[in-house]
């Protein structure tokens, strides 16, 4: 794995930030949302999320997963194990209008939790990019594109391209220093 990203959790200003390395990520791409939604419901028991929404659920086998809206033709699937992704990939095989592109290792998750989470997100990017609970928003954080999932009122998952993860973490580190009594 990428050693320089193996840092300890960052704690300051009422927020804890750590790299989430267990998450598997895939992009479900489709032309027709309804068809794809049916397929996902069949496999995972949940439909595709509405615009800018996140669904947290678990498969019948008890595997937790997240469905996050990314765009009109794209939903991200995040899971702690390969199972949900493999089943979706198998279901997509041979289909004309839906495919699965595995992004594990390419998209990294940075988990932020604590009372300071909204403040951190606001100072990393913008007010408009801070998701409410159950929202998925893509915006510019630390000068790079980040998709932020509002997992709870005080908990968010920042999804960023691996190549920019260190930059984002560096920016987070600096911001936390200022949240920690810098003003």
């Amino acid at each position, binding site marked *: 794995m990428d050693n320089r990203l193996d840092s300890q959790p960052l704690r300051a200003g009422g927020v804890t930030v750590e790299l989430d390395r267990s998450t598997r990520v895939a992009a479900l791409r489709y032309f027709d949302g309804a068809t794809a939604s049916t397929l996902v419901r069949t496999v995972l028991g949940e439909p595709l999320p509405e615009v800018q929404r996140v669904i947290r659920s678990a498969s019948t086998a008890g595997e937790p997963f997240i469905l996050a809206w990314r765009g009109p033709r794209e939903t991200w699937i995040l899971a702690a194990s390969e199972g949900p992704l493999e089943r979706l990939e198998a279901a997509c095989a041979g289909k004309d209008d839906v495919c699965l592109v595995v992004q594990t290792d*390419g998209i990294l998750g940075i988990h932020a939790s604590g009372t300071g989470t909204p403040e951190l997100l606001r100072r990393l990017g*913008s007010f408009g990019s801070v998701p409410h609970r159950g929202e998925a928003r893509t915006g510019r954080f630390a000068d790079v594109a980040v998709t932020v999932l509002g997992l709870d009122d005080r908990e968010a998952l920042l999804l960023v391209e691996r190549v920019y993860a260190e930059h984002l973490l560096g920016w987070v580190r600096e911001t936390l220093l200022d949240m920690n009594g810098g003003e």
Partner: protein
Amino acid sequence: MSGTRLGEPYGRRIDRSRPISFMFNGRVLAGLQGDTLASALLANGVRLVGRSFKLHRPRGIFAAGIEEPTGIVDLVDGRHRTPDERATLVELVDGLAAESVNCWPSVGFDLGAVNGWFSPLLPAGFYYKTFKWPGWRPFEPAIRRMAGLGRASLERGGEVYEEISENVDLLVAGSGIAGLAAAAAAAEAGARTVLLCAGREPGGALGWRGDAEVGDLLVRARRAGVRILTRTLAFGVYDHNLVCASERLAHVPASATRRLSERLWKFRARSIVAAQGAFERPMLFPDNDRPGVMLAGAVDEYAHAYGVACGRRVVIAANCDSAYRVAESLQAAGIEVVALLDRRPSVDIGTHAAGVRAIANTGIGKVIGARSVRGCVAVPADGHSAPRLRLECDLILVAGGHAPAVHLHSQAGGRLRWLAESSMFVPDGNARGLVSVGACAGVFGREAAAQHAADVGRALALGFTVPAAPVGGASRSLASSRIAAVRGKQLVDLQNDVAVSDVELAARENYRSVEHLKRYTTTGMATDQGKTSNVNALVLMGEFTHREPAEVGTTRFRPPYSPVTFGALIGRRVGALYRPLKRLAAVEWHARHGALFEQFGNWSRPAAYPRSGESLHQAAQREALTVRRTVGLFDGSPLGKLEVWGADAARFLDLMYLGTMSTLAPGQARYGLLLNENGVIVDDGIVARVDERRFWVNTTSAGIERTAAAFEEWLQCEYTDLRVLVTPVTSRYGNATISGPKAFEVMAAAGFGAEFSPQATRHMTLHDGHWRGVPVRVLRASFTGELSYEINLPAGETEQLLQALAEGVETREGCLYGIEALEILRTEKGYLHVGTDTDGTTLPGDVGFARGIDRKAANFVGRRSLLRPAARDPQRLRLVGLAPLDGRTLLPTGAQIANAPPPTQTEGHVTSSYPSPSLGSPVALAMLARGGERLGEQVTVHHLGRRIEARVVSTPFVDPKGERLHG
């Protein structure tokens, strides 16, 4: 002028129970909590604060706010300096130390003041006229030492800056009565409203007077949910209602290791309300820049807000009615108003001040005192007739009328009109997305301003039509306050030492455009941006060119409205965060193996792996030669990667690339040039077919974003009927490229099976498989000209693969190689590098792909442009090889090819050039006019006065038959 504190109720902003100690020019002084540096200096009787920009004239505090042109200081803390701070904006803190600017050895005895003796020789634009021979350079250092303001620090302090963005319904810039009224009304109507207050507390000019209505509005605004940001100044309006503002958070002592000091706000507002008030206009008379000449409104503010009496005996030079109110206000505070000299005829004067001796049709003909005011001489407005009246005073106030702060309106594209009666420019209607209210809209009546602003706020919140501004309420004032017949330097721009005579000179020299006037005289430049000088300069320009101010017009106001620190603009983009650099998954592994990292196309990647004592150049030469002789290992992870999927993917890629991709069978790969609609090459890469619907597209490392964006744009805007999905996967995959005659030996040693042997896996084919249980995608393609395998695998496994391959490389006397060696290798082969060998004019035919255009039957992006005669002009530049005639001299990249030394018509230029370790002589690629027809021809390469003879040769330089590719 002897400054002292006034008793209660004066001094609303200060806390008399909290004394503060500070230093000015090494002297320890006392101030109070709530003071600005300016108010504290005035309270201590400090008159001489600094020296002027050009002539080193003595200068004091002139204003009380953002418009301050002369009270400029450097804040000093140890070895750290913050230059050019306006003393009027610096909040006093314990231990603060300030120094005067532009003086040596001291502000009191400044050798630079000798410039004043030569001022007749230093008119506007003197440096353009005087220092022509032998050139500007010899004079520049001395002039720069003599002129200017503060000195920037070379030490980094503890300041940290950040940037925050926000979307709002309504942004109100300015927190006076109009701004508060607009914000309160908008928020009460449901708009998400942010109010920016440049000072410590909202309220504007009425705030420091303790106005009750302002207090009520503030309560209403807060109750309605208006977010009020204090110490936050909107300094720029940009496209699409973007407003930038800087928020000052704290003064940072250099001893502090870290302190957030400033924040840049980027507001995207549905609507903007400008409510930044108006500036008082100075009066023109000789020596009107002496310490002790101040804006009347500022002196009133120092009295009410800070309890500071700037003087005890005051003469007021007036051109408007507000001077009378100030006169009464100061009299009430116990400050004697010796006389009010009104430049206007009696008929224009609309008020009076009880107990004040007011004289109409009169101005100041002379100021008595050099470093402070000791008196003045009053003269009739015509300057000629008697009597002349000598007045003893320690302070001269100027009240020349008002200039609305139209900056944001102008930045937003708004037009201005001249209001002759009050001699001011006001907004001519509203700018797009921005509405001005209050004094900056030309609405000076208090009731009218508050009502109009509230109506505007409500209308913007509800989407109604915005009411027109009821412009008016300002008194009559003359456009020109100059007294023509008096002698002496009358300063128009106090900060830049621009005098009336400079404007007159510019007119005599036939400068007519206001833009030219500004640049020639430098009026309106530097830290105050002409807030107190612009209108006077424009009026004078009109006077000297026999035009009305409306005909002269104004310059277009540009951001920033007020100086912004570089730190605030940069924010966190310092050091490692300077810009988002893409980072290799195996970066630590490369570092352990001695990589020298450099930035290439937003990536930080190994340029080479120098051994002890080796330079980058020597390392690259060694690495390139090693690849040719044995084998080399390269991290190709930055190569752009896209998955293109869908029933129409093949057809789509035919449209996007010069090169037919639809005929590829699964597992086959083909080189392609990506063109824009003009036929210009924008990227290249390899397209491989994974299965019937799925393609694997490699782009250049720097070209992935533009390629992905081009694909999406064509799919979304033009080829909307195609069922294709494009997914970038660059980050997902790492790439280890093994290249050289022993490439497969290394792979086999690392555990790759015989199915990857050169015999089983042909050049330009793609194979999916597994290595140690990890899925790999192996592409047989080469950018070195050697047998090569590009092995793609999940990014997190890259290090493991590199390590396994490196062991095999080492035992075969191979090496790791970086991007520099790759450049040498591909140049030896004559391979095109898009962006290095091409530019924004290069067409496929220029780089040897003319046949591809003709042979491709299907349509593709750029095709039509390539069929134009100009695209087939035989005179076009063509990519060729160049070899120096002497076999030794490296042809500099960028050097021009021409028959004669420059300046002349060039025939082309060198695009890539390296010493070839394989050949023992330099090789180069060049774009040359009619290049393809000139093989064997001798050409001359010119570079910085050198001539190098070279011969046009065919490429590749190495392995012309391409046999090495196949192992």
